[in-house]
């Protein structure tokens, strides 16, 4: 049943040579009261690899993200980033090390404008003001403009997040994560509910970011994402990692398919 540590296919979407392990998760466990949300999960996220976490609702996918980003403290286990333990670090420190995430329920800065939503993500350091003075400020503004352009939100720059349409909100999530300058992105259902047109744009955006060297881990139900963009699939069910391997292997495994499609 356990198919961990399968060798990665080097003929995947982009040329992958020496893959450095960015994030290492070992024997992670999370209990909520009596409920075991995550049990003994171990996996590696390697540079440049797009991993998709699949599994029925309540399998513990988001819980896993929350433990990696420090929003939840694991009951047991270890999380390492580039060889250093992340356990016990507050979420903001983990974020500054280069791990960014989106949320399933978006959590936009609702009463700020689109522009401010993006800008504030770039302004994580500093107390009352940012270092770098005018030139850094101009550089930030230019980056905001380019992100707005690439996410198709250019015309909405001054609109408050709460006044955006659904698809635009989803793109604002992507815009915010682009502004973080992180090496690893944890995306929680970034494409759910997108219309076909927006979905195409989303896929294009994600592909180009991956090509730029971003490592991505996605939680997604959409089979198209699973098939088209993933290098690797990790299958969670009831808090356990049932399988971890190439998309073909997972998708063609009748047992997993039964769990996955049976539940839905």
């Amino acid at each position, binding site marked *: 049943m356990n198919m961990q540590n399968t060798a990665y296919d080097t003929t995947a979407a982009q040329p992958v040579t020496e893959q450095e392990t960015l994030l290492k998760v070992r024997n992670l466990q999370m209990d*909520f009261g009596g*409920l075991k949300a995550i049990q003994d999960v171990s996996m590696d996220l390697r540079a440049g690899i797009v991993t998709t976490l699949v599994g029925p609702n309540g399998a513990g996918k988001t819980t896993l993200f929350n433990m990696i980003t420090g929003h939840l*403290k694991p009951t047991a286990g270890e999380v390492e980033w580039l060889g250093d333990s992340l356990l016990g670090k507050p979420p903001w420190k983990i974020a500054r090390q280069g791990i960014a995430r989106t949320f399933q329920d978006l959590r936009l800065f609702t009463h700020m404008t689109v522009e401010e939503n993006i800008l504030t993500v770039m302004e994580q350091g500093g107390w009352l003001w940012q270092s770098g003075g005018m030139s850094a400020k101009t550089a930030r503004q230019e980056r905001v403009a380019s992100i707005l352009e690439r996410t198709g939100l250019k015309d909405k720059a001054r609109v408050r997040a709460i006044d955006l349409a659904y698809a635009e909100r989803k793109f604002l999530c992507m815009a915010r994560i682009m502004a973080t300058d992180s090496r690893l992105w944890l995306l929680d259902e970034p494409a759910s509910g997108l219309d076909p047109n927006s979905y195409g744009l989303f896929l294009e955006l994600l592909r180009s970011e991956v090509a730029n060297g971003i490592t991505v881990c996605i939680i997604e139900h959409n089979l198209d994402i699973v098939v088209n963009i993933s290098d690797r699939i990790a299958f969670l069910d009831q808090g356990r990692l049932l399988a971890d391997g190439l998309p073909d292997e997972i998708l063609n495994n009748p047992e997993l398919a039964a769990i996955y499609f049976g539940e839905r």
Partner: protein
Amino acid sequence: MLLLQLILNGLQVGAIYALTAAGFSLIFGSTKIFHFAHGATFTIAAYLFHYALTNLGLHWTLGVAMAAGGAVLFGILLDRFMYAPIQRHEGSFFTVFVASFGIGIVVENVIGMVFGRSFISVSTSLSRSVELLPDLYVSPLVGLAVLTSLVCFVAVHMFLMHTHAGMALRALSENTELVKTFGLSPRRLSAYAFALGSVLVVPAAIFTASSSGLNPAVGHHVMLISLAATIVGGIGSIRGAAFAGLLIGMVENVALWQVGTQWSEALTFAVLFFFIIFRPSGFFGRAAVS
């Protein structure tokens, strides 16, 4: 002997605090509503009891029934007509807190206009202290308060552990999704939580009215105790809130050995602040990080 006296007083006050805090903790834990008007429920119950006995001259059992009816009705009406509409459109901590706070102000002032702003107390045959030992004055209320709160806690425990609605309430505090498996709507459960949480302050309000007395502004004090006990006990733990309430009541009274009564709120603050600094998750709490 003085110390023994203070410990007994602490027990009585602690039992009262435990009930009040448990009510707040139950509501907050299961519905996530920051029910700042819990203090107002306390005030309403106490004044209804006072009105029934002093103004209407009713038997105390009827007084208790009126107080309980008033408290439960107030709790359920707030849930239905104030919190429900707010939660339907936004339900942020901000809106809930402000509305709850606002209703507390209204209740305090309406009661102040109707009954006056001075201290009231209901004297019953049980309020009189008897000299149990030389220099040790004990009113039967002490035993009664402790007994009543024990009975209440056993009842709440049985309800939460063994009834369908009780189990659903516990599930609600763990995870809103889980509740659906119980086949009860969150709205119905919310009403249960408010009814139960509100009824718990009734004995506390009655004992306070019959012993130390109270004025319309007591609501803020009640809230300070409830909030402090909820945090000290660990958010989401009714048992924790009850123990913490008892602890705070004890500390307040035993400290009278050394300091004046005016410092009792300062001591509550000290206990609260100590926990915030050294053990923010409280006695029984899980991780306190949002």
